[in-house]
């Protein structure tokens, strides 16, 4: 298990390889469909959201307020990343991301942006909302809640030992491409 903490220097990200099991600690911002489209169309990040050398998490959490009025995250697994494929390269380029957490993998444009700008794709375990919510130690803030609604808002989380697998590295390799090609070749034997 490799440990990383935000902010993450580029050199550290470039060392990661496909299949590495990584444990993330530090600040993570969520952003999914509405946020990506908004940024792609020239929208500005709200004050307080700093993605430089940071991590963006494709996630629409279940967050409730406790008796004291504090936010508490009760479920927070990754959402399918491929929907952000048209926009992700630009967000990586413009905001200096070092990591994107999601599930299901991403395509060529993201792969190329990861290689060019020094970023990796961290695959979370889809559906494991409780195990992953336990790693969220604090909900520090929420942005654009009014505009996008709770699942689509930008949530700022402090995480501790958040488990992920590197499936796109910063050198142009993708586990998703490899598994697709191998499974396609295998299927050809049976049909």
């Amino acid at each position, binding site marked *: 298990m490799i440990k990383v903490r935000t902010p993450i220097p580029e050199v550290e990200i470039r060392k990661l390889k496909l299949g590495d099991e990584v444990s993330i600690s530090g600040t993570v911002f969520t952003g999914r469909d509405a946020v990506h489209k908004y940024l792609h169309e020239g929208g500005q990040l709200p004050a307080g959201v700093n993605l430089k050398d940071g991590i963006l998490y494709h996630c629409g959490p279940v967050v409730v307020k406790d008796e004291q009025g504090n936010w508490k995250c009760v479920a927070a697994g990754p959402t399918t990343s491929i929907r952000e494929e048209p926009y992700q390269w630009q967000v990586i380029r413009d905001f200096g991301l070092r990591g994107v957490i999601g599930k299901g993998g991403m395509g060529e444009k993201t792969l190329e942006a990861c290689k060019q700008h020094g970023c990796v794709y961290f695959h979370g375990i*889809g559906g494991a909302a409780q195990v992953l919510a336990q790693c969220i130690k604090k909900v520090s803030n929420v942005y654009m809640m009014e505009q996008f609604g709770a699942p689509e808002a930008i949530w700022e989380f402090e995480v501790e030992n958040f488990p992920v697998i590197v*499936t796109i590295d910063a050198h142009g390799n993708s586990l998703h491409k490899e598994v697709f090609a191998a499974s396609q070749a295998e299927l050809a034997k049976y049909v």
Partner: protein
Amino acid sequence: MQSLQDSLLELIRRTSAEIPDDVHNAIVESLEREKKGTIAETAMKIIDQNIALAKQKSQPICQDTGSIIFYVDCPIGFDQLAFQDAAREAVKLATKKGFLRQNSVDSLSGKNDGTNLGPGSPTIHFHQNRSPEISVRLVLKGGGCENVGAQYSLPNEKLKANRDLDGCRKVILDAVLQAQGKGCGPGILGVCIGGDRATGYEHSKEQFLRKLDDRNDNAELDKLEQDIIDTSNKLGIGPMGFGGKTTLLGAKIGVLNRLPASFFVSVSYMCWAYRRHGVTLGPEGEIQKWLY
């Protein structure tokens, strides 16, 4: 009908937080099958921990608490409108309590009013029976797996799929290949051969009411189900698409008549977080027994 509303709230809570035993057993078996020290094994271990934790904390297994689909078997004279009102109230309350995410968005305005109520949410299918029993089954189906569902129209030249059972097999396996890990595998397929575009998908989803360890009454379909599972698990897609031994936990195939001009094969994909429970209700709407 306070009692009915309470029963439905409990059905929603349990469906969101607790995986049915038949699915959990299949997940434990697949964890044991994966090679030790692989990322496939890591994925299955986290999945298994997650199942235990969700149950213990009575919180959603997955944050995408999905489309809310009720299947109600009811006797003649059952008040469907009263049931609908109780179900809507139960959904609203379950959302407030965090058993369901604020998950329903106005498709035109993009607004999410946070109640999970709106056109199509929740969806309720009523089936009238001569039996006096009332049973309610609930499926919560997440968007990630819904997005990898596929509907094929046969013949399909690219896949060399003709209008026969072998053609059906080819397109079903193509759906598995295309889905990879994107629908949170290991997955379960619900398939309908025949029907029109709407009834085909609907019937494919109804397959998820079957238990994973049951067998199809139709010998031909049973053989196809087993073949789809065995072949898919040879492809090496594995949990989350990481590579590995378990790509599918199950495949359930139903059939509807078709028009001479149409031959649809509709494939719905269910993620490992297969949330399905059911209850029978007494005369006051109280829960009598759990079905899964």
